C-alpha cells in the first residue's frame, strides 16, 4: 500500500513539474511575442502524430534511456555522474574503431563486438572517475567535467587527424563510415526505428532486476543511502561505487555506440549535443526507477523530435525545449514545493517565522 502511494506521489511530482514547466515556458514565449499554444500544438503533433513522427521520437528516446540509466545507477550508489557526455564519446569512439577498421566479420559477430567495444570503452572511462575518487578522494563533480572536456577534445582531434575520412567529398572533419556489417538493423521499414530500441528496453529491464533482485544491486543501494551502515555490513563502499561508475560508464558508452551504429554511422565532432546532460533530466524525472526512466526518456525524445517541427512551423527556436527541460529538472528537485509541510509552514508564518523546523 505504502509502496503504491510512493509510486503515485512520484508520478504526481513528475506530472506537476511538467505542467509547471510548460506554463512558465509558455508565459516566457508569450512575453517574447511567440504564440505558445501554436508552439505546443506543433511540438506535440510533430512528435507523435503519424508513424514516422512517432518512430522518430522513439529513435530520439533510445540514447536518452541509456544516458538516463547512466546517471541513475551512479546516483543510486551516491555519486553524481556528470560525465555521461565523456563516456558517451569514448564509447562512440571505440565503436567506430571496431566498426570501421575490423573487417571481414559477419553482422552477427560484428554488431555485438562493436557494441561491446563501446560499452567497454565507456565503462573504462567511467571507472577512471571511480578510481580517482577512491585513490585521491577527488571530487567526482570536477573530475567528470574535466574528463568530458578531455574526451570531447580527443574525439575532435582524432576525427580531424588520424581517423579523418580523406576520401570523402567534404572537407568536414569526420571518420569513415561504419561498415555495413556493423550497422544495427532497422526493425520497422520506412522509418529509422532500429534494433537499439530493443536494446534500450532490455537495458531498462536489466537495470530493474539488477537493482531490486541481485545482491550487487542491494549493495549499491545501501552504499548510496548509508555508506557507514554498508561498511558495518561488510560491503566495500569503494568497490561498490567503482562498480556503479563502471556500469554508469557502460550505459553511457552504449548510448554513444548505438547512436553511432544506427543513426550517425560516422564519428563527427560534437555529434552528441546535449545527450549526456539530458540523461540527468531523464533520470531525475523518472525518479531513478526503471519504468520512470523509460517514460521520461520517451517524453524528452518526443520533445526533441517535435521541436524541429515547431521551429519550422511556428518559428519558435527549438532551443525552447531546453528551457522547458531545465524547468522540469528544477521543479522535480524542488519537489519540496509540493509537500504539505511547506505550505502548512507558510500560512502561520505571520506569527513565527520558523514553523518548518524539525527536531
Amino acid at each position: 500500500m505504502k509502496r503504491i502511494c510512493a509510486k503515485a506521489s512520484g508520478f504526481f511530482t513528475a506530472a506537476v513539474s511538467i505542467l509547471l514547466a510548460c506554463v512558465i515556458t509558455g508565459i516566457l514565449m508569450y512575453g517574447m511575442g511567440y504564440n505558445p499554444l501554436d508552439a505546443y500544438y506543433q511540438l506535440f503533433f510533430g512528435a507523435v502524430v503519424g508513424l514516422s513522427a512517432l518512430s522518430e521520437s522513439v529513435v530520439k528516446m533510445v540514447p536518452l534511456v541509456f544516458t538516463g540509466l547512466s546517471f541513475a545507477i551512479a546516483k543510486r550508489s551516491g555519486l553524481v555522474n556528470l560525465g555521461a557526455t565523456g563516456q558517451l564519446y569514448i564509447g562512440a569512439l571505440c565503436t567506430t574503431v571496431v566498426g570501421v577498421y575490423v573487417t571481414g566479420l559477419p553482422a552477427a559477430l560484428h554488431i555485438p563486438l562493436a557494441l561491446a567495444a563501446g560499452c567497454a570503452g565507456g565503462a573504462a572511462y567511467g571507472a577512471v572517475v571511480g578510481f580517482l575518487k577512491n585513490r585521491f578522494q577527488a571530487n567526482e563533480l570536477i573530475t567528470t567535467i574535466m574528463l568530458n572536456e578531455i574526451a570531447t577534445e580527443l574525439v575532435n582531434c582524432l576525427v580531424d587527424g588520424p581517423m579523418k575520412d580523406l576520401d570523402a567529398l567534404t572537407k568536414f572533419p569526420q571518420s569513415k563510415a561504419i561498415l555495413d556489417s556493423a550497422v544495427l538493423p532497422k526493425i520497422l521499414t520506412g522509418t529509422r526505428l532500429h534494433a537499439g530500441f530493443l536494446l534500450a528496453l532490455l537495458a531498462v529491464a536489466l537495470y530493474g532486476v539488477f537493482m531490486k533482485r541481485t545482491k550487487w544491486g542491494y549493495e549499491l543501494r545501501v552504499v548510496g543511502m548509508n555508506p557507514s551502515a554498508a561498511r558495518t555490513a561488510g560491503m566495500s563502499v569503494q568497490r561498490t561505487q567503482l562498480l556503479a561508475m563502471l556500469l554508469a560508464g557502460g550505459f553511457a558508452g552504449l548510448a554513444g555506440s548505438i547512436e553511432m551504429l544506427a543513426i550517425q554511422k560516422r564519428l563527427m565532432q560534437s555529434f552528441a549535443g546535449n545527450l549526456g546532460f539530458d540523461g540527468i533530466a531523464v533520470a531525475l524525472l523518472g525518479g531513478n526507477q526503471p519504468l520512470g526512466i523509460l517514460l521520461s526518456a520517451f517524453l524528452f525524445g518526443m520533445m526533441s523530435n517535435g521541436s524541429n517541427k515547431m521551429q519550422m512551423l511556428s518559428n519558435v527556436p527549438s532551443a525552447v525545449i531546453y528551457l522547458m527541460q531545465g524547468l522540469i529538472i528544477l521543479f522535480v528537485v524542488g519537489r519540496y514545493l509540493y509537500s504539505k509541510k511547506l505550505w502548512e509552514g507558510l500560512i502561520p508564518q505571520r506569527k513565527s517565522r520558523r514553523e518548518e523546523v524539525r527536531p
Partner: protein
Amino acid sequence: MAFLEMRHIRKTFGSTVANDDVSLSVERGEIHALLGENGAGKSTLMNILYGMYPADSGEILLNGRQLHLAGTKDAIANGIGMVHQHFMLIPEQTVIENVILGNRGNPFVLNLKEQARRFTELAAKYGMEVDPWCRVDQLSVGQQQRLEILKALYKNAEILILDEPTAVLTPQEVQGLFRMMRQLTDSGCTILFITHKLPEIMDVCTRCTILRQGRTVCSMPILPGADQHELAVRMVGQEVELALHKQAAHPGEEVLRVTGLHCARSDGVEAVRGVDFSVRSGEIVGICGVDGNGQSELIRCITGLLRPSAGEISICGTDCSGAGVKRILRQGVSHIPEDRLKMAVVKEMDLCENMILMHYDQEPVCRHGFLSWRAARLQGEKICRTYQVRMSSLTQAVQELSGGNQQKLVVGRELAQDPKLLIAVHPSRGLDIGATKYIQNSIIAARDRGAAVLMVSTELEEVMELSDRILVMFNGCIMADIRQADATREKLGALMAGIKGGQTCGS
C-alpha cells in the same frame, strides 16, 4: 517573582508532544538541575529557552519581563548561553574565531589581537587557560568544553544552560567542572544543568525540576541527605526494577581472544595501546570507560572496520587480525553497532530490506547472487514477532519506527543469527526504561544460549548490572579486569579516571 520563569510551555514535533504544559522557575545564582530520562523533553525545553525552537504556546519571563525569542540571537542578547551536548565548535578554525563568531558589535574589520587579549583575561579570571590561537581540533574534549563555557561567558551570559556536560568527562574532570560551576554561581551566574545522573545532582545542585514524558513532575530543593531513590522513582514514574533476570554465568570455551592489540586513529594518535583480554562463551564481558578512551576503536578492530597496527585477534581459534568485516561476520559474529541510525539500519529502506542487511549474501536470502524477497519476508516476520517490533507492515520504512523499535529490530536481527560472539555497543543508548530492560534481557538470554557477549557502555549502571566481568578502559589501555561481584561505583570511577592503586597512569 522568580528570576527566570517558563510557564505552560508546549511544543510539538509533528504528532509527538515533546513538551506539554511544562513550567520551570529558577532563582538567581542557583544551580538548577533539570532531571529526566532520555526523551523526557529536557533538551527541547532548554532549546526553547535558548531560542532554537519557538514554543507552540506558553511564555518565558526573565526578571518579570516577558521575553520574545525569535531566535538564538535574542536569547544571547538577553544573557542566555548554552553549552550543547555535542559541542557547537568549528574544529577547522581557531579558538578566538570560534569565540567571536556571531557576536554583536563585531567591527567589519576584525581586530583579533584585541579580542584575544580580552578573551585571555576572561579565561584567567575563571582559571581556564585556553590558547586563543590554537585550532579547535587540537584541543582535548575537556578543553573544548571549557571553551564552550568561555564562549558563552564572552557573550556576557548570565544564565548558562549545560546540556549533559558530564557525559564525555572522567569523574575527575567532572569534579573540576563542578568547582567551576560553583565559582560561576558565586560571581552571579545562574546555571541550568541538564542530566539524568542522580549522584551528580546531589553533588552540585541546589534545586531540581523533574520532567517525565514532556510534563513537569515536580520541583524541589536538593538538601544534603535527600533520598536518591525517591528522585529516581519520580523520574521514571514507577518503582524501578533494578534487578534483571540473570542467573550466574557458566563460562565455556574461549571464543574471542585479543592479544597485544595496538591501533592508531586516522590522525595518527594511538587509540588502543596493547590490549589483552578474552571472552568465553556463556559470559558477558562489559567494557566501561569514558567515551573516547579507545573503546570505539577496539570494537572497530574486532569487527574488522579498522585495521590494527599490531597484535592479534582470534575468534573461535581462527586468527582474524586484519581480516575484512565479512570474514569476521561469517565466523558467527553479530554486531550491534554504537550508532543505530548511522551504522545499523538504512533508514530510507523498508523493514524487510533492513532485516537482511548483515547477511544479505547468505543462503537462504541470496542464491547465486539473486535475492529472494520471499525468504527475507519470512525471516523478517519471525524477528518482528519474536522481538516485539511494533510496526504496521514489513514494507514500512525504518525511519517511521520509534527509536526503541528500531533498536529492537537491530537486536532481533543480530540475535536471530544465533551468534557465537555478540558485540553490543551502547545497546540501550537513548531508549526508554521498558525497551532498555527488554534489550538487556534479550542479551542475557543470548548469553544463556551459549553466546559470548562483549558489551561496551558508558553507563556504569548498565555495565555493572549486565556484565559478568568488567574491563575498564582508560587512554587506550585496559586498567582492570573485575568480577561483577567485586565492582563498586567508586572503584570503577577511579579506574575510569586512570587511577590505579593511588597512582595516575598514562598521560
